[in-house]
């Protein structure tokens, strides 16, 4: 007996709950020589901005115990080049393409969405709200519930496709931001983006990244991400896509059980380009072994026993 792995988010049916995370899967096509992209539940593109961005000076990455810090600086070819050069090939595959969108101000987010609105083959938009807001003095959109809500509302108003808001763990209170953007009309949430971190070269006495701090990702952050996803799913009604340190099928199952409707695979793609496919195969095997007929029966099935310390 084979298990139904499909899930639904914002009216979209995903053939399985395994998506790839923005910035860790290129524009998708880079992986086309590894496996049929049509096997994935979905692909979140590299973050797209209005104009091409060349990103930060090197060094841009550093390895840490169980993870890595990055400060790529959102390098991307720009939304127009994406639509013109990448999308036509990408939409050949039988999977959902989710365009990850960001800007340095309100209007830029909207402009990117307007351009994407006219393009074929995109299923949803994922707003990366953990970007420095140039107009607000570099403060991240994602840190302030009101800002995040306003942005969501504005995007929602013009978007022809569902809006997934991607939450930052660096927000003072991620649950408040989640509630605020839900109220503002977000169709779904994804969490978490990277956690702000620092690594120091003790010989040069400089940060190991050219920009100083960077975003922590990888297995090291899994327990924190899982906690936040649990908290968020219990605070909102819209579906939540879990992200953070997922490297094995067990990791993915933890997020689904904790309440995520789907998950995204990030850093694991780097050290194992087949990670997402191995996890999909692992899900099938797990369901078969445990007599699970639909993966949806697992979602949010965690029996929490909260006793205070």
């Amino acid at each position, binding site marked *: 007996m084979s298990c139904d792995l499909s899930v639904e988010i914002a009216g979209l049916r995903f053939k399985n709950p395994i998506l790839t995370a923005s910035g860790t899967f290129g524009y998708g096509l880079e992986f086309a020589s590894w496996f049929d992209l049509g096997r994935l539940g979905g692909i979140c593109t590299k973050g797209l901005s209005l104009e*091409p961005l*060349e990103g930060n000076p*090197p060094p*841009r990455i550093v390895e840490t115990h169980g993870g890595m810090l990055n400060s790529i600086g959102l390098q991307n070819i720009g939304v127009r080049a994406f639509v013109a050069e990448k999308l036509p090939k990408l939409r050949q595959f039988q999977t959902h393409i989710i365009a990850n969108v960001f800007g340095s101000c309100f209007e830029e987010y909207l402009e990117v969405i307007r351009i994407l609105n006219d393009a074929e083959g995109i299923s949803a938009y994922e707003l990366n709200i953990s970007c420095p807001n140039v107009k607000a003095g570099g403060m991240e959109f994602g840190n302030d519930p009101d800002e995040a809500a306003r942005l969501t509302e504005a995007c929602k108003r013009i978007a022809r496709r569902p809006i997934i808001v991607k939450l930052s763990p660096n927000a003072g209170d991620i649950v408040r931001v989640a509630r605020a953007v839900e109220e503002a009309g977000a169709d779904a949430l994804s969490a978490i983006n990277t956690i702000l971190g620092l690594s120091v070269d003790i010989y040069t006495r400089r940060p190991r990244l050219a920009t100083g701090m960077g975003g922590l990702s990888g*297995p090291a952050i899994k327990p924190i991400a899982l906690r936040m996803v649990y908290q968020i799913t219990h605070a909102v009604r819209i579906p939540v896509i879990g992200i953070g340190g997922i490297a094995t099928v067990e990791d993915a199952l933890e997020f689904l059980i904790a309440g995520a409707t789907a998950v995204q695979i990030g850093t694991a793609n780097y050290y194992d380009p*087949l990670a997402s496919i191995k996890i999909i195969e692992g899900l099938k095997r797990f369901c078969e072994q445990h007599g699970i007929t639909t993966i949806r029966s697992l979602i949010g099935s965690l029996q929490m026993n909260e006793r205070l310390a």
Partner: protein
Amino acid sequence: MMRDHRVRILSNAPETLTYWRLRVRLSETIAIRPGQFVMARTREQWEPIWRRALVIYRAEEHAEGMDLEFLYKVLGRGTALLSRQRPGDELEMLGPLGNGFPHDADPDAEALLISGGIGLPALYLLAEALARDGRAVRLFHGEPTVEPERPLPFLDDFARVLEPEAITLATEDGSRGFPGLVTEAVEAYLERTRPGRAVLYACGPTPMLRRVAEIAAQRRLPAYVSLEARMACGFGVCLGCAVKTQFASEHMPHYRRVCAEGPIFRAEEVIWDEL
């Protein structure tokens, strides 16, 4: 084709105080360009999470597939872990990756191969290919020091494809061969022979590569350098290995990826002050 090859270790042992030689068996044959690399990890490796880049030193086809050789230096966690693997153990190797050296750049020119320390393994397949094409090839290899009584066995590998007198060893402390930096040995050679046409191919520490670029510029010789960068993926998706170059790639005014557009760049493309 690029794939995640599961390979079996045939041997893995220190060859000098500094360098280890690893020999593995692939069950198939693959096409390799000189200077291409693999991203390697041990089986069930949890920590460190990244694979490690290793250039393919030598390759030998045979009935069962292909044997690959690597030379490496134990620096940190990743290479220390690699050094603890034994014959029979399996490794996972993504590859071959990167662009490789253009060995047909200038068919009539003399090829000067220049390496510093662990830069050497990037040059063997190139030396072999050039020699096979009947090209004039010289190797200049630099080390800080070499213990007189300890030979460098891997230089013998080169001696089998090049004329022995085409190999120059330079040591900074003068313990063997040319006394001084390898780039000084190259300059002395160029000064002496003034070759009309020569192509420089270099791999080694950044200051050495930079000096090679200067030498090439002064003498208007083409030069190709193999760069290093921290790499999370090795196949072009993390954008972590970017270096600033004069020329653009894919809408990027400056940055190119060492793992994808590189690791080999024309020396004059590299913006050395921003490395």
